[in-house]
């Protein structure tokens, strides 16, 4: 099978080669080198996993995996279902209908993205706790005294964890889907409407299929975030596969066993991604070529009292994903105002901003390089390498960080040994335990975000654009720079903001790789909260949410202006 396929592709490639300009050896090698660096942590983990004896497996298979696979799958399905419904429905609502506060809500719906899952989990633990505001109100209303007098849903379950994760992760689906509804869906929808289809039918039969790649892309990010989460799952006592990775490593002293589980998880994710890609390969033509109409088709105006139903409904996900965490941490921070003036907080903020900015720039550059090489070379091997490069997102941050730590330390120590032997002085650890290692780890971890949004931006461009530029005498690189880059501006901006925000929220890899005295906002919260008192890190937690909020809002505004200008 594989051989036949490769022979075919070789054949067709040859045919293409005849008319194509020569390959780009420099770009290609650069792309391979970069992919190699991006894959370093995974390669290191493969070595660790292979060095294991497999002695953990009888225990894992018998007592751990059945349960943790079940809760991981349940968690993933619930989160996918919730984020899918909320993300798609809210995107459709703000694009297709007109109602009070529509514009405001359409940017506010992105806000939960600013809240890290581990903070959201803590906030919900407090919010719904017996001593929290909700149960307090229930007791006051009904005159209950103790916890045994009434039933109250428990957030500390797989279902509860899924709810919390969905509350902060649905913006991925909302963002990717809304763009498609705005840019591509409407005109097709209008055609269908003029042919007599009801709005409901249009949504199910026309728009949903058109938006499918975008929904899938959003859900893929959601699911990878769900898999790699350890903060929320651990806090709520849900034993997912990622939790099993950590207990195997830390409690049974088997890093090898932990790495083995992590790699199997990664393989599953990879299969899922490839399958999704493969299924939608045939659908690209429907979605890709639609031209954008310059007419503004009217939104369906809802009249009467009913028009208030929409904003009230849309407010719910915003309150769940953003309002509750803001309330809880805002309340704690208000009792500890002095924390805001601690120099450590300012330093952490600065470090976070610098790390996130550098990471965003680097990730965008790497994604652009890889995608352009794929575009120019079109080799299957290259495509596979690039796809593989973005898989790190599904790894738990601490495990990815460990893989990178091993690679960097090996690199540093090799150089040091060489310089010592040759020139007689020591270079020490150049990268290990430096902020550069942190930037590198975050870049590797979040390259999927940059790659995903830029790729979907490229897919939306008309196919002949590049050819046109080149037929006018531009080299491929020139055409990339002068034609593609400006057109990709919204996609690049999205990529940069997604990476920036996730880097501000990143905790596990940063805490492992950072140098002495180097705190980001996230590690600052953790240092203060690791005794189980996140109140002590409330100011920093609030700062994370606010810091992440700013670019999210800027992006949302920029995209909306772009998209609405097109219509």
């Amino acid at each position, binding site marked *: 099978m594989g051989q036949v396929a490769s022979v075919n592709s070789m054949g067709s490639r040859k045919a293409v080669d005849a008319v194509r300009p020569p390959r780009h050896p420099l770009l290609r090698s650069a792309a391979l080198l970069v992919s190699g660096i991006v894959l370093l942590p995974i390669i290191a983990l493969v070595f660790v996993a292979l060095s294991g004896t497999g002695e953990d497996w009888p*225990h894992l298979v018998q*007592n*751990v995996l059945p*349960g943790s696979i079940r809760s991981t799958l349940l968690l993933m399905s619930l989160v996918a279902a919730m984020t899918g419904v909320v993300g798609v429905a809210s995107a459709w609502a703000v694009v297709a209908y007109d109602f009070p506060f529509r514009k405001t809500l359409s940017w506010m719906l992105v806000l939960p993205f600013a809240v890290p899952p581990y903070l959201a989990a803590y906030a919900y*633990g407090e919010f719904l*706790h*017996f*001593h929290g505001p909700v149960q307090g109100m229930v007791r006051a209303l009904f005159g209950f005294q*103790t*916890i*045994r007098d009434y039933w109250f849903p*428990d957030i*500390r*379950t797989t279902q509860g964890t899924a709810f919390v994760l969905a509350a902060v992760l649905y913006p991925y689906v909302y963002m990717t889907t809304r763009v498609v509804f705005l840019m591509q869906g409407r005109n097709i929808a209008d055609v269908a409407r003029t042919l007599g289809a009801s709005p409901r039918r249009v949504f199910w039969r026309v728009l949903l299929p058109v938006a499918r790649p975008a929904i899938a892309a959003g859900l893929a990010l959601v699911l990878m975030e769900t898999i790699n989460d350890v903060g929320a799952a651990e*806090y709520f*006592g849900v*034993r997912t596969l990622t939790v099993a990775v950590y*207990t195997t*490593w830390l*409690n*049974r*002293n088997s890093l090898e066993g932990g790495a083995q589980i992590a790699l199997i998880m990664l393989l599953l994710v990879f299969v899922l991604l490839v399958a999704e890609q493969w299924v939608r390969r045939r659908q690209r033509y429907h979605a890709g070529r639609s031209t954008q109409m310059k007419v503004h088709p009217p939104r369906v105006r809802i009249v009467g009292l009913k028009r208030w139903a929409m904003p009230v409904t849309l407010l719910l996900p915003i309150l769940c994903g953003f309002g509750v965490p803001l309330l809880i941490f805002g309340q704690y921070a208000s*009792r*500890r105002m002095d924390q805001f003036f601690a*120099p450590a907080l300012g*330093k952490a903020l*600065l*470090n976070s901003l*610098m790390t996130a900015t550098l990471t965003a720039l680097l990730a965008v550059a790497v994604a652009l390089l890889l995608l352009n090489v794929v575009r120019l070379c079109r080799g299957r091997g290259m495509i596979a390498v690039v796809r593989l490069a973005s898989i790190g997102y599904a790894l738990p941050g*601490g495990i990815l*960080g*460990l893989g990178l*730590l*091993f690679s*960097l*330390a*090996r690199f540093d*120590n090799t150089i040091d040994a060489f310089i010592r032997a040759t020139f007689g002085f*020591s270079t020490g*650890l*150049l*990268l*290990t*335990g*430096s902020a*550069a*290692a942190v*930037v590198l780890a975050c870049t590797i971890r979040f390259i999927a975000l940059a790659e995903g949004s830029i790729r979907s931006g490229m897919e939306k461009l008309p196919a002949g654009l590049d050819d046109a530029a080149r037929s006018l005498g531009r080299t491929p690189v020139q055409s990339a720079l002068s034609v593609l880059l400006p057109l990709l501006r919204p996609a690049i901006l999205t990529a940069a903001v997604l990476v920036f925000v996730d880097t501000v929220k990143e905790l596990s890899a940063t*805490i*492992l790789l950072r*140098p*002495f*005295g180097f705190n980001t906002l996230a590690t600052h919260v*953790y*240092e*203060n909260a*690791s*005794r*189980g008192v996140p*109140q002590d890190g409330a100011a920093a937690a609030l700062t994370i949410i606010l810091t992440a909020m700013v670019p999210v809002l800027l992006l949302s505004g920029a995209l909306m202006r772009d998209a609405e200008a097109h219509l």
Partner: protein
Amino acid sequence: MISTKTSGLGAFALAALFATSALADGTVNIYTYRQPDLIKPVLEAFTAETGIQTEVLFLDKGLEERILAEGENSPADVIMTVDISRLTSAKEKGVTQPLIDEKLNAELPAEYRDPEGNWFGVTKRARVVYASKDRVQDTAITYADLADPKWKGKICMRSGQHDYNLALFSAAISHWGAEKTEEWMKGLKANLAKKPDGGDRPQAGAIAAGECDIAIGNTYYVGLMRNNEKDPKEKEWGNAINVLFPTFENGLTHVNISGAALAKHAPNRDNAVKLIEFLASHKAQQVYAEANYEYPVEPGLEPSETVKAFGKLKADTLPLADIAKYRKQASEMVDRVGLDDGPSS
């Protein structure tokens, strides 16, 4: 101390982008699993006395792996951590070096240090029972009692896979053997009021809420809760419970330690030794006891008033190395019994 000056863009790029190996004279580099706030008072006292600056790197996991990966170039001088298993694991993974030091050997009781000098216990904490002041009349309890059906639906605890619980279960295995411990753990599971989650403090909160009558927790959390001036809720939790010292058949209570070790390639070895000696000194022991509500390891030194009010601790004399030995077995037992699934399954 960590400089508090806000650094600009340039400083970030130069000072942080490339690893600055803090090798300068008069510094000691600490890799720690202990929260920086907890060790800050002691470290400040150290700097005040010796003039040696401390650089602290806090990690939540992978401390040993990081030192191993860094190899000979590792800047780590001293490792500080809680839990005996982490100390022995550091020794087993080869990231510590033996330190034979007369001063330390004189000051620290033999049971709280590695015979080969690879780690030193500097504080201890007991794993006790938090009992509801309102609903529990018992004034004494044994660890075995926790499996007694009379507590059915009344016990709260954090995850059985947490270090502190694993150490307790390992101690049980050393006292009772694996088979009896597993039966006991099944009984404990059946007595749980809810699925284990959160930390030790929220278990006290659960008692205050009426969710359970007793919980398993460390002593110092009670001190921290009762003296929490910033959060009235925690104070309430701390005051809703009594501390009972559960015992094994020998009448003694399980204790764990926090400790320090000399890192394998310590570049500032002399300063590192000075720090470890300081941690064992009377002055540091007092700071630990007062600021953190831990028990000093120094014989004869009293704990803080808050902790004294719990009653008298009679610490188990079981060799700490035994506890570490059974950790993996205990962890597997927790999975096998399904302790973390809670009472229902």
